[in-house]
């Protein structure tokens, strides 16, 4: 009897190790599989509704897949259309660097030599200057890019002459600022970025293409999981319970019901919360002057990031401030906002959206679905990120929720049935 118990423990430990190895080996499929499962979970009532209207389940699932396919296609096309061309990207970098320097200079009261500023500058420049330098290095044009950018504009081949003139002026100001910052740093010459062309760039492009191929092949599993889970009418659960000994049938049924309830509450709650936060960010940022197109992009990014705790706020702040940095003309819907205070209003809008999420949406839609201590949440997310990267961050909270329910529910029901 004792040997049997020992064997059972060894088998359980081996199963846990095997499961951990499989999770590790298949980690690139975790997020696509989770997304497929999540969509299937959300779509189950829709399929049931279609089935109630005498549409066969297979047809209902096919219809949903078609809708998702069309949405994904339209989304991909929109993203592809929004990706700037090479020239537009150069323009964007010039404008971003100009805006960054201009706002930093204004905020810190820096003179034209970039060496003397106000009290705020004296207080913070040791920490902020390296950060600004790194962003500057990332945005500054290389020598080839500069020629490519300035030559056609100065030759007057560009159609929009006024805008071109302004951009060339921005680039000259950027070059001057780079020179000043280099002198201040004691480098003498402004840092010229090495050319991006050549074998390194080719290798990078090839690597990027290979990476994209890998990502796409990993994501091919998402529609499969979606189809499989939606087409399933209970055989998955029955199969699982069929493997359970008779004396464990009812406890297993009860535990599965508890896990299903907890997962359902979490998925529905987090989906609604992400949607509500995304819409709120869209409304608030539009009110303070972000164009609707960009507000929608920031809102979607925020909503999607909100699946990872505390990440929605960071995403909204990052997106909003990035736009505020680049914006030249602001057309707010509320009169208090000016071009100078735009960035502050963007922060206010994001903070208000986050407050609304914490005070209203979370208690309302998530309720008690995720009653976890903040320390557990942070540890889970950090641990998940360290072990599995973005997939770990994404799945940390649902995994902790499931494991917690699995343990508490199993203990409760096994005790109630006199099995422990």
């Amino acid at each position, binding site marked *: 009897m004792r040997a049997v118990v020992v064997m059972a423990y060894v088998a359980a430990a081996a199963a846990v190790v095997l499961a951990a190895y499989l999770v590790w080996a298949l980690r690139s499929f975790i997020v696509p599989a989770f997304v497929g499962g999540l969509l299937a979970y959300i779509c189950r009532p829709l399929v049931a509704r279609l089935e109630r209207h005498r549409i066969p389940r297979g047809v209902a699932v096919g219809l949903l897949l078609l809708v998702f396919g069309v949405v994904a296609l339209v989304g991909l096309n929109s993203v592809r259309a929004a990706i700037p061309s090479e020239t537009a990207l150069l323009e964007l970098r010039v404008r971003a660097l100009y805006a960054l320097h201009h706002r930093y200079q204004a905020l810190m009261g820096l003179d034209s030599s970039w060496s003397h500023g106000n009290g705020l500058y004296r207080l913070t420049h040791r920490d902020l200057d390296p950060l600004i330098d790194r962003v500057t290095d990332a945005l500054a044009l290389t020598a080839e890019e500069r020629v490519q950018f300035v030559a056609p504009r100065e030759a007057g081949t560009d159609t929009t002459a006024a805008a071109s003139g302004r951009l060339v002026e921005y680039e000259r100001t950027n070059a001057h600022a780079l020179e000043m910052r280099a002198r201040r740093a004691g480098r003498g010459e402004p840092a010229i970025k090495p050319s991006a062309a050549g074998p390194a760039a080719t290798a990078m492009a090839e690597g990027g293409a290979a990476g994209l191929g890998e990502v796409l092949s990993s994501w091919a599993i998402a529609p499969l999981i979606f189809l499989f889970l939606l087409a399933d009418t209970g055989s998955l659960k029955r199969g699982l319970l069929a493997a359970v000994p008779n004396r464990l049938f*009812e406890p297993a049924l009860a535990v599965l019901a508890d896990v299903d309830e907890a997962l359902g509450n979490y998925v529905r709650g987090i989906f609604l919360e992400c949607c509500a936060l995304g819409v709120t960010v869209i409304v608030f940022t539009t009110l303070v002057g972000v164009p609707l197109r960009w507000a929608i992009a920031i809102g979607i990014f925020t909503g999607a990031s909100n699946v990872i705790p505390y990440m929605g706020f960071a995403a909204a702040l990052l997106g909003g401030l990035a736009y505020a940095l680049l914006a030249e003309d602001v057309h707010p819907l509320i009169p208090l906002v000016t071009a100078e205070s735009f960035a502050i209003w963007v922060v206010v809008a994001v903070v208000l959206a986050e407050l609304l999420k914490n005070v209203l949406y979370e208690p309302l839609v998530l309720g008690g679905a995720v009653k976890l201590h903040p320390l557990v949440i942070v540890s889970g997310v950090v641990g998940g990120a360290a072990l599995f990267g973005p997939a770990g961050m994404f799945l940390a909270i649902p995994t902790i929720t499931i494991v917690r329910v699995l343990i508490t529910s199993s203990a409760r029901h096994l005790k109630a049935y006199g099995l422990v």
Partner: protein
Amino acid sequence: MNLTVSGLKKILLSPRSHTDAADLDAIRARALFEAPDSAGTKPDRSLADFLAHVSLFEDLGRRDLARLARIVHERDYADGEYICEEGRPGVALFIVRRGVVEVVTRAAGDRDVPLALLEPPASFEETALIGPEMPRWFSVRARGPVSLLGLGKSDLEALSVDFPVMANKVLIRLAALMAARLRTLLDAEFLGESDQRTEGAP
């Protein structure tokens, strides 16, 4: 196996004494477990066909029965194996598909007292489907190899979300079944007490 109110009255009003507690338990058990108007079933029919003969699912159409057949859990029990135990909570209803199960209650000295035998397509533990996890009143064990169908409370809850009309039909039938059993039980209790009073009278 059918036990109607009039049949029960006949048993109770017969000259045999009903003062024995086990006898009263047996009457209660029959009233609680026996499926009224349950038709005999052939063991080798399809699951949906079989379910059509279970009194709880009599109102369901072919499509709903096929859907139900995909939800229920098929379990096989060996002779003497307990399906559910007295005092433990219940989260599933069981339907006898093949074989015979025995309803027993625990008497002094942990001795099982047999109360009733159930055959296909009788169902038991209906209360598990609707109420909170209440402790069971009786134990049920297999008499020979038995095939059962289990329907979990969570399965019915999922049905009521996805297919509310179908779930309503089952629940209405369940309510009617339980009301009939309650009436039978109350009748049995009342007649049992009357019987005892009559016997105790000088």
